[in-house]
């Protein structure tokens, strides 16, 4: 693995002007993400973790500071299709089959029909949904739909995957399964993944780097480099190393947030 920096944020600020006065969504955020990292952003609601992800994706603009993706601005990165973005809900079009849903970004990007077909088959295999290409979204469970949405984000072969609580709406059993699958996927594709979550076990289980954030103003409290091995069976969550990291995340969350 090289040490190439993929995402670099320097003293990033983002203030939303609302009717109740300014809201500091991000304040003095500094972060470097290295190629091949799996970075989780964890924190309570309003800590700016989603906003940070949206800034990387050029969906929100910072009010101050600099951020580069692959060495260029988020806008240039978006236009060069440097990242795939997975939202909280799958956002599949009910009038398109699973295959056609995955083709959607490929059609928009003007990729040839024959290559579209190839890529759809490839990414459906990656998320283990080969037999569902001709099915419609309503014929799939919520977990399967979210896998389709991951497949869609992978279809145009961006090096970075930005994921905003993709499994937040799913039950724990499905979530465990998808976490395992996502790790496998990360190993086989060598993507850089930024993953927003508010589940501590999910963050610790998945990540090489855990960014703990806190609200009002949204800021980074702690960055934890995980020393868990690359191969992670679900049982790893009962080991001491895992529990230690989880403990540190919990302490970070507690330090940055008063619950009064």
């Amino acid at each position, binding site marked *: 693995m090289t040490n190439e920096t993929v995402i670099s944020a320097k003293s990033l600020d983002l203030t939303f002007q609302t009717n109740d006065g300014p809201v500091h969504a991000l304040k003095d955020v500094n972060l470097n993400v290295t190629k091949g990292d799996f970075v989780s952003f964890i924190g309570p609601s309003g800590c700016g973790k989603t906003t940070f992800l949206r800034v990387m994706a050029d*969906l929100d603009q910072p009010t101050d500071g600099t951020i580069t993706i692959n060495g260029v601005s988020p806008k240039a990165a978006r236009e060069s299709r440097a990242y795939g973005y997975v939202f909280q809900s799958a956002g599949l079009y009910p*009038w398109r089959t699973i295959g056609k849903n995955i083709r959607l970004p490929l059609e928009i990007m003007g990729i040839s029909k024959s290559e579209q077909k190839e890529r759809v088959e490839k990414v459906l295999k990656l998320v283990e949904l080969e037999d569902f290409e001709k099915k*419609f979204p309503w014929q799939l469970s919520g977990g399967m739909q979210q896998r389709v949405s991951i497949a869609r984000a992978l279809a145009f072969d961006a090096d970075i995957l930005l994921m905003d609580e993709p499994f937040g709406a799913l039950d724990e059993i499905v979530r465990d399964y998808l976490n395992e699958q996502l790790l496998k996927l990360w190993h086989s594709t060598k993507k850089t993944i930024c993953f927003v979550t508010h589940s501590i076990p999910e963050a610790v289980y998945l990540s090489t780097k855990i960014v703990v954030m806190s609200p009002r103003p949204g800021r980074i409290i702690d960055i934890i480099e995980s020393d868990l091995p690359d191969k992670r069976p679900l049982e790893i969550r009962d080991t001491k190393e895992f529990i230690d990291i989880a403990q540190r995340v919990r302490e970070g969350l507690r330090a940055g947030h008063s619950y009064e």
Partner: protein
Amino acid sequence: MNKSLIPIVTISMFIVLIWYAFSIVLNSSWALDKAERNNQKLSFSELVHDTWSQKKPKLPTPHQVGYEMWKTTFDKKITSKRSLVYHGWITLSATLAGFMLGTLLGVLLALAIVHDKATDLSVMPWIITSQTIPILALAPMIIVVSSSIGFTGLMPKAIISMYLSFFPIVVGMVKGLRSPDLLEIDQMKTWSASQFQILIKLRLPKSIPFLFTSLKLGMAASLVGAIVGELPSGAIAGLGARMLSGSYYGQTIQIWSALFAAAILAASLVGLISLIQAFVFKRMMIAQ
């Protein structure tokens, strides 16, 4: 099927009964006057028989209207000036022409409103204002103006139809084109989709259910427009002209049969759109 049929039949029969009853009440004074002049006393059954078979009743009975419609639909050549099919076709052609123009205008306006903030702010108030003007006041002016620039016959009526039918299309389509949620728009942005691609792949498909609702309203409004357009123009053909000449000569049966012909026409046209809608929804996997 049976379960939905029973209430419909019950209500229909109830309406027919009330109708017959009102025919007796409204037409009896004429029958009684006539009997008095002839120094007759009418029994109740004679009274009923008379009120249900007058030539120019205040309220014709269903069977009189039905017979008139049958006669003027099937017993007359369709080219005859007394054929209901002939008059119906005149109105239908203006309705369809106006409906198509209105749909086109409505969709184009909606596209402009959704994509351009200035159009939204400047045109929308005028669109709403346009519908507050009574069409009966406007129709003669449209006919006078359009005939002075050389449009006569079908065209002026189609313009009035368009004037009424574009409104539900604009309102429905603006809502439909704006129905994609923030997540869907953001998603498109992450793929760097152009406005045109967002329109074709997301906004238009999402607006289909809204479009069909609007089309049904627009079709009904178009027919009203075509009939209203026939009233002030001194038109001699069309269902509106049929109603007007009926009222000049006290031919109530003729008015009612034209009225029913218009209602049946509207129901068939809206029904046709519903059929197309069911087909499209099935293809697009939209729940009805």
